[in-house]
């Protein structure tokens, strides 16, 4: 009888410990799994510091023709550098129309393009007009990794060249040639040496740095 009572007590003691422990284990496992899943869902791409910094949504995969190794190289590859504010975003003809060639599918229109209108606020080097239009591949729904949509009213630091396929338009020579001015500080759209050099600078600080390079 004593043995039976002791056995019952032992079993009670075991379940008293086991149940909360198991619940804790399951909760811990679920918590870690959910945390990891959430982290992956928020940022599923590698974060080694060289990945594009725009939020998700890029649907056009692309290889850039040029990525400058320094701010100076970016400046040397650009005709003008300006601080400018977006005044309008317009859809342009799709790429197929631009090229003038049948690119294949009878109902294929090719990737979308946009024309971004700017008022120039400050010219840093080169001969920039007071207002200009920038060519962009993509749309508000689909864009190239590192080149997210522009927002009307937003100010940017732009390094630009004239487009050789559309006389009135300008293009950044590299995705590094576009930084957004947010809360008084510059933020690059894509990670790289120019972005590192300019990130966090005010408009005045960046202007001094860039004018210094040009001189």
């Amino acid at each position, binding site marked *: 009888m004593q043995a039976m009572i002791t056995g019952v007590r*032992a079993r009670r003691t*075991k379940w008293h410990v086991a149940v909360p422990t198991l619940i804790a284990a399951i909760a811990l496992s679920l918590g870690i799994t959910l945390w990891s899943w959430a982290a992956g869902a928020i940022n599923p*791409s590698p974060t080694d510091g060289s990945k*594009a910094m725009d939020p998700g949504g890029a649907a056009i*995969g692309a*290889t850039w023709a040029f990525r400058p190794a320094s701010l100076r190289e970016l400046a040397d590859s650009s005709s003008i550098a300006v601080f400018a504010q977006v005044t309008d975003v317009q859809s342009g003809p799709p790429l197929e129309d631009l090229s003038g060639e049948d690119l294949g599918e009878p109902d*294929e229109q090719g990737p979308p393009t946009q024309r971004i209108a700017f008022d120039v606020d400050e010219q840093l080097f080169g001969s920039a007009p007071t207002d200009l239009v920038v060519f962009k591949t993509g749309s508000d729904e689909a864009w190239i990794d590192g080149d997210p949509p522009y927002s009307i009213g937003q100010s940017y630091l732009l390094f630009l060249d004239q487009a050789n396929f559309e006389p009135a338009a300008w293009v950044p020579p590299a995705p590094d040639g576009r930084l957004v001015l947010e809360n008084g500080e510059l933020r690059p759209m894509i990670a790289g040496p120019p972005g590192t050099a300019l990130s966090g600078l005010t408009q005045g600080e960046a202007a001094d740095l860039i004018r210094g390079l040009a001189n």
Partner: protein
Amino acid sequence: MHCPRTTIRALGLVALAAAVAALALGAATVTTAEAHPCCNGSLQWWHLHTFSYRFWNAVDSPTLNAETNDARADWRDSTILGLPNLSSHNKPRIHVSDNNFGNTGWVGQAWPCFHCAHQAGSYGHVYLNKYYSQTANQWQGTACQEIGHIIGLDHHSGDCMGLSYFPDTSNRVGQHSADDINNYYPHPPDGSPPHVRVGLSADKESPFYDLAGDAQP
């Protein structure tokens, strides 16, 4: 005597809990570190039920055409996917062409044709911009990356998928990309049921058959 045994069992359960937690953490970490599906995991271009993409190389420039063929062969030989070559415009699932698009900033681009009705959404077009001058190997790298986008990969370091985004790259398909493709197609990262490839030929150039027995192409 009973208390120590209970304590040992409790400690065992704690150890089990720790092991389960460690396994969960490890599995989640591996998933996060190795997963690079394109376009936020939308799998928008993936042709999962055949593992096969009919490939039309319509590039005019002889050099770019040859490098596009090399890139196609690289993906075919490095992965479980088939990329059977088409000699004409017969409903390709990957279509590569070249043109002088001007100084747009990009040297290559992969674009899914959302509104090509007869292609049912599983069609991607690679554009090579021959305005820019590159070496033959660089053109192979560009074609390699754009084909990689269409078969489902995002940018990542170590091989052609990192070109113009990461410092450590190559112009070829790397083990990382091959592993991603070879893992994703049988086990899609969106959680959809596992897929099985059937009807393969050894050279992966002959027609493939999907699970319903339909020839592809």
